[in-house]
């Protein structure tokens, strides 16, 4: 059997220079690196991502800070939780037993009232928000990108025809989140395209997503510019 021997690779100085220059050219500028490192709300978005992707037990301090405050954070100790749960169950059982065995008669009027079928009541529809922009969005991102978003949303609103009362008008949507830097957004025009995408895509924009829902599909409106670039996105429920 012929033995294969590897000859040492000859040094190609020209190729080395080419590779070195190419890699140097491809890298981000110092400005971009500094801007990314000092991006506003970067740490808050990281915490939101950790909170969204981690089990509550695994991220004790995130849970403490973002959801429950110091009181429940203190009680996040498992022993305390078990004790509290057991006490609550015992109290409920005791209350139920007391209610069942109480000898106080129920007044006839109350009995009749209870026996009468209650008329069917339809809940009034929830008031629709006036504009999509007034709806809630993660406050950190909202603060971060307010200027571009407001301009984009304003320009899109003016281009839309008056909505007929459709499913869309009862939807809840986040604010438009810019996907790219848009200079003079007032002068840009585009179209709104409704798409469906996995909920995990929201993570890429720093939005918190429940770990169990990452596989689900979520609706989104994407503003596509005349040049075909996606300018902004909002998520719709």
């Amino acid at each position, binding site marked *: 059997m012929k033995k294969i021997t590897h000859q040492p690779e000859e040094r190609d100085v*020209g190729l080395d220079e080419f590779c070195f220059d190419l890699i140097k050219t491809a890298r981000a500028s110092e400005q971009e690196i500094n801007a990314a*490192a000092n991006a506003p709300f970067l740490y808050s978005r990281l915490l939101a991502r950790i909170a969204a992707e981690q089990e509550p037990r695994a991220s004790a301090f995130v849970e403490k800070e973002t959801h429950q405050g110091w009181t429940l954070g203190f009680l996040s100790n498992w022993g305390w939780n078990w004790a509290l749960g057991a006490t609550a169950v015992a109290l409920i059982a005791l209350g139920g037993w007391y209610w069942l065995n109480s000898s106080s008669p129920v007044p006839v009027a109350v009995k009749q009232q209870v026996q009468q079928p209650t008329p069917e009541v339809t809940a009034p529809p929830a008031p629709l928000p006036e504009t999509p922009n007034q709806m809630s969005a993660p406050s950190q991102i909202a603060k971060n990108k307010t200027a571009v978003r407001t301009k984009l949303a304003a320009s899109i609103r003016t281009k839309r025809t008056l909505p007929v009362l459709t499913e869309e008008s009862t939807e809840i949507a986040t604010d438009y989140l810019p996907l790219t830097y848009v200079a003079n957004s007032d002068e840009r025009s585009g179209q709104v395209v409704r798409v469906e995408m996995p909920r995990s895509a929201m993570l890429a924009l720093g939005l918190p997503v429940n770990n169990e829902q990452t596989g689900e599909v979520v609706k989104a409106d994407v503003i596509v510019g005349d040049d075909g670039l996606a300018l902004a996105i909002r998520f719709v429920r």
Partner: protein
Amino acid sequence: MTYTVAVLTALEHTQTGDDELVTAAIAGDQDAFGELFLRHKRMVAAIGGRFFPRREQIEEVIQMSFYQAYVALRQYQGGQTHSFAAWLKRITVNTCLDELRKLQRRNENLISDLSEPETASLLEAMWDDPSAERRTVSRDLANKLLSRLEPEDRLALTLLYEDEWTVVEIGELLGWSVSKVKGRTHKARKHLQRAMKRFR
């Protein structure tokens, strides 16, 4: 009062070593993890910037790297084997590899060869001193060319040229054998050699 305590805690953290901060973070001290983030985010961003030219891509690398570090915080062995910075660097490089793979999957059908004008523009920008605008264009073209490499090949090549690391160091960082690093860099160099010959 609370504010004073917070300030004192923050001051205390700035004077604490990384290993102590890791211990505190594992114990549930969010400020300690925040201090680690502040200390090392620039390093993580610099590593991300070697592979990704755009700000939002670098931000994603920062977030993913620190997320992975947070998840694996208990596995950090302390300064006995590697410093926290070296440990985080390894996580960041692997995060970059994952992101390169994702990028390749997304752009699989979009990558095309550089056209003649694009090639000329890239070469001119690489060897001359271009304007800021042309530098941006040439950066995109250089990334377009590098995106034709396998993510592992690109990673090894970048570490070899950009950081001037030895193949042994790269192997240790990535958990690869020396022969794998050599094979990957050789493959990448061959690919670029073909491209270079076509350009010239």
